[in-house]
């Protein structure tokens, strides 16, 4: 206690800094707080530029759609088009049932999963957009459905979890 109490440090002495040990331990990073998922501002774009544009690629084949998304992302990087976000939409699962030829029962045929990847691009010039579209179309693989549209708030909301309790309360209040 007495050792800790005294604040004299004999800097000329060889015993200066004796007892220090924190420099030996690994650096502790500050605790990362969970960042709130907030919607970024949607750019409307000027007359000569498009605002936020979503390139949505949908397919049943996961690897194919992933690789195509990577290709499009790298293409945009190479053409120095600003890519805001590149994310995946939740997977949809569908059960395909078909009616048997002789019988009235529905039989399970297959379980299909639909995967979707979205690349959000900003600042496409009006002259370059059709060229980009042409290039992406020419390298579109089989079975991948391409959709290019402007980004809206509804698109962002579709990524979030449903909150039935909040909606119920809001309905009751009003």
């Amino acid at each position, binding site marked *: 206690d007495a050792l800790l109490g005294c604040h004299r440090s004999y800097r000329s002495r060889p015993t200066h800094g004796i007892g220090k040990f924190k420099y030996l331990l690994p650096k502790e990073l500050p605790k990362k707080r*969970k960042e709130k*998922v907030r919607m970024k501002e949607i750019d409307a*774009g000027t*007359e*000569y*530029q*498009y605002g936020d*544009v979503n390139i949505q690629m949908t*397919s049943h084949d*996961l690897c194919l759609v992933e690789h195509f998304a990577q290709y499009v992302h790298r293409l945009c990087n190479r*053409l120095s088009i600003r890519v805001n976000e590149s994310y*995946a*939409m*939740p*997977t*949809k*699962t*569908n*059960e*395909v*049932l*078909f*009616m*048997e*030829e002789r019988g009235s029962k*529905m039989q399970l*045929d297959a379980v299909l999963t639909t*995967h979707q990847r979205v690349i959000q691009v900003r600042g496409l010039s*009006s*002259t370059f*957009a*059709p*060229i980009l*579209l*042409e*290039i992406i*179309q020419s*390298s*579109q*693989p*089989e*079975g*991948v*459905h*391409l*959709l*290019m*549209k*402007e980004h809206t708030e509804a698109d962002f909301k579709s*990524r*979030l*979890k*449903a*909150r*039935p*309790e*909040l909606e119920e*309360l809001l309905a*009751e*209040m009003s």
Partner: protein
Amino acid sequence: LMLCYFSSCSSWLPQRVPLRGSHWQSSLLELRTSLPVRAQPKKKKKVDVRKEQAQKERMKKKLKKLEKAAPELIPIEDFITPIKYSDSNRVRSLPTLSAEESERRVLLLKKWSLFKQKQDEAEKNAIKCLVESQQEALKELRLESEELYEAAIRRDEGLFPFQRDGPSYTPPLPGYDPPEGKCVDITKVYTQ
């Protein structure tokens, strides 16, 4: 005179209203509102109002609490490896390749990388050509008329939304009669 007045009144009035029996009733036409209101009905009103207010406050508090919680993104099943693929410890032992086989594979890789490079180069050239020809066309258009040039430079509202299905391996068979069936959506719904 009084007797006949009373009898006529009783036939005219609705049956549920009591006759002027008690002296509390000020007039025959008014119903029980003129009766001195006892303590019982008043308590009901106060308690109701208070209960309602308390309920509203509770609802508001709940709403505030729910609104405070940040909205969460739906977890994507593609990125979550199922547990059954991480439990087992079995390891695949690959057979050793012969020299010829490994040689063949290396040469194949080289050919493939060359092919891909040519493909990439062709794409870059295509983009360059497109941009150049576009710029030339716009220049010529500018020389022709300024108005048309301005109109061409503007963004096309009809471009988005744009949809296109990918090419298919085989075209659809003509005259194919598919069996009846339906698609059921069994996606898991996440709620916060």
